[in-house]
């Protein structure tokens, strides 16, 4: 016989307060996403960051139309906007005005506004895809290390240590400086962008890898993994069906926080002169040119601000996301 067990409807409703009732035990599940979203919505600063991120993405996607409406072709020279003897922009403030919203570059008079807008595309592309590379490498290695443990973990852990001890920037420069310019069916800037994505992604995976490994380690100890094992589940099932879904939130959060790091990494490489081939504009590249023209505030500031705002927006958003997903934070 079955016991007449009562299922009180009300108690079984979704109760965010079960978060409080079960103090100490972290509550996850879809609620996590939902609670996170609730928290995020209340976090105006993070939302602001998110809005800026979305705007930036839109700007990057629609850079073509934006440039054609508000500026000039980012590659086009405007000798007429340049003082031919000093080669500096004519007029004050770098020839800023309705014609050139943010002024023009010295020497060749290219439209800074257009170049910054066009640069957004590269920065975001590299930021996102490099992060994707790191996330893929980091997640795979992190999960494998955390799940299988033992010598696998030892080996992967050592690899991470090596990466952490590398003077990465130096390596990235060395590598970016000597890469051949043809290969993998790509050529020219296509290949360079791919290389940068690879290099940046490849050098920044350990940060995600560590987090994923840690999370996997603790997930592996959770009883639902044992439950799956005792049902006869294979490693693949456990990894993909049981462990991975629980890693998505932290991965998402740290990926969001890695994007700005990678954008900065790209900017640093471009700044050090091993970025994309000209004339394709990048923010770091613009800044590195601006070094020679440091007397022109507009030339220095706008690309710098572009990097700053982008990175800040991602950081704000990522921070908010992390807080929102943090089971401990209220």
């Amino acid at each position: 016989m079955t016991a007449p067990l009562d299922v009180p409807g009300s108690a079984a409703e979704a109760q965010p307060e079960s978060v409080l009732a079960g103090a100490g035990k972290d509550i996850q599940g879809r609620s996590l996403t939902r609670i996170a979203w609730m928290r995020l919505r209340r976090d105006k600063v993070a939302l602001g960051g998110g809005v800026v991120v979305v705007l930036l993405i839109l700007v990057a996607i629609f850079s073509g139309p934006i440039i054609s409406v508000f500026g000039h072709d980012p590659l086009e020279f405007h000798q007429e906007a340049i003082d031919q003897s000093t080669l500096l922009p004519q007029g004050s403030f770098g020839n800023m005005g309705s014609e050139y919203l943010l002024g023009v570059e010295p020497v060749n008079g290219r439209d800074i506004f257009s170049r910054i807008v066009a640069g957004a595309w590269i920065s975001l592309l590299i930021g996102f895809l490099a992060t994707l590379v790191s996330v893929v490498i980091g997640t795979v290695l992190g999960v494998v290390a955390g799940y299988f443990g033992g010598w696998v973990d030892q080996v992967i852990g050592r690899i991470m240590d090596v990466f952490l001890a590398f003077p990465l920037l130096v390596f990235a420069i060395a590598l970016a400086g000597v890469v051949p310019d043809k290969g993998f069916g790509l050529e020219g800037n296509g290949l360079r962008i791919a290389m940068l994505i690879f290099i940046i992604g490849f050098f920044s995976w350990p940060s995600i890898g560590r987090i994923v490994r840690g999370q996997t380690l603790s997930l592996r100890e959770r009883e639902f993994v044992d439950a799956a094992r005792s049902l006869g589940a294979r490693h693949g099932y456990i990894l993909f069906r049981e462990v991975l879904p629980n890693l998505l939130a932290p991965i998402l959060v740290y990926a969001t926080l890695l994007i700005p790091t990678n954008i900065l990494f790209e900017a640093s490489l471009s700044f050090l002169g091993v970025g994309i081939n000209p004339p394709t504009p990048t923010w770091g590249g613009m800044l590195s040119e601006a070094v020679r023209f440091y007397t022109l505030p507009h030339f220095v500031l706008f690309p710098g601000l572009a990097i700053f705002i982008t990175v800040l927006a991602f950081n704000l958003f990522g921070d908010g996301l992390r807080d929102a997903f943090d089971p401990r934070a209220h």
Partner: protein
Amino acid sequence: GGGGTPQQPAQSASGGAAQPAFNASLTGVYNPSTKKGGTIKAAHSSDWDSLDPADTYYGYSFNFGRLYWRTLTTYKTGPGPDGNQVVPDLAEGLGEPSPDGKTWTYKLRAGLKFEDGTPITAKDVAYAVARSYDKETFPHGPSYLNELLAWPKDFKGVYKTPDVDYKSAVEATDDTTVVFHLVKPFASMDYIVQMPMTAPVPKDKDTGAKYREHVISSGPYKFETNETGKRFTLVRNDQWDASTDPNRPALPDKWEVQLNVNADDLDNQLMSGSIQLDIPGTGMQPAALGKVLPDPALKARTDNPTIQRLWYISVIPDNKPLDNVECRKAVMFAADRVANQTAYGGPVAGGEIATNVMPPGIVGQEKFDLYQTPENKGDVEKAKQALAACGQPNGFETTMTFRADRPREKALAEAMQQALSKAGIKLTLKGFPASSYFSDYAGNVDYVKKNGIGLATHGWGSDWPDGYGFMQAIVDSRTIRPAGNYNLSVKNAEVDKLIDQAAGELDATARAKLWVDVDKKVMEDASILPVVWAKALLMRGQGVTNIAYNEGQQMYDYVLLGAE
């Protein structure tokens, strides 16, 4: 002004303090003085290749080195066109060629001494020349003498084969006579021996590759301290006898040289006066230009000479369709010379628009223009015609290389890309690190062929101001080797023939004419797209006297300078 001897500098100068004026030291000595004493503070934005006379190949090094070394001949000091002339230095007079032009004899002055007081003899000069032969130890220095002199077969350098007598190439027939034996007639020997390979080195003080750490002075100054890569100081060499040296007034007591100073900081310090001399002498940085040019007071402190340097683009005929001369001509016509000039820094800091290979300062140079375009801004029509003749009416695609760490070359590449696109020629730009640009990329035959490189930015400055000194290295197809080439585009048998003819021609005017012919041939071949004959905006340091721009050195004449 006339080129007075340094002892009575610049007759044109008024007695008192000179009035600062733009280009004041191009034609006369600015702020002339004979006052001795004081210190000149100089700075360099990077590092010397080497301080060793056998191992250096930079113009500034040749110029500055004269403070601590003396060569058989040297450029006449002082401003104006006379600076291109060579005058005797260690030697009593210019070289005496044998009638076949294959033996050159130089006689040394009397009373020459090294800093340690030992006399300088012809043996020391011959030893220095022989020593410079060893390119394994001295890879940086010029190798003219390696090729010109009749070295014994088994001679591998003074260190590896110390017992081999090299007198078949260079010998000291007595204490004061140096004789050079050439493998072929060569007219410009006086120019060659003004290079530091002939600066005497005492054999017993020679430490090979380490000699650079302490070079034994034969000039008016000697090393006091030398911190490699950071700084060094020169102080008076009391063994130097002014009476043996008509070229060097040796005014300051001391020279302090700072290395690896940030280029922008260097300019700022030069303007403010805390540094008095910018050693490389290649001109100010853009940031400084922006301050100097609009400011009359600052501008009056500057000079703007044209130097014997051509910035150019090799139009490499190795790949289709640039193997067709018409296609190369299309490039010539399509290029926007004004934009190119701007890329290099404009008419002031960049240079004069170049229409042919040889720059104006070269003896006997002629200016001509085979590819005239309206206002020098390129002619799309003519370019298209040329394209049609080449069989590429819709244009073509090719790749242009440049040195990524050189902003001007980058700007040039961008300008070319813009201009050529108007004629339908699509350029892909590729930047490479300067350190491996010639070895691995734009100067590597295989690379260029495999990667379809069509255009490559280059620059060339003369080693001495005649046709050979300027042209030979960049238009002689026989110099082409697998890697490290400066010339990959000019491969023309006729050009090579003309070069041989010119090199052996002892008559100066005929020789100059032949070099102009070479120039014309190259331009007809359309394998070099000249960009600018370089100019530099040089700033005279504050508190520096006796400043004159010397055309031979292509910068201020460092041995003339004095401190107020």
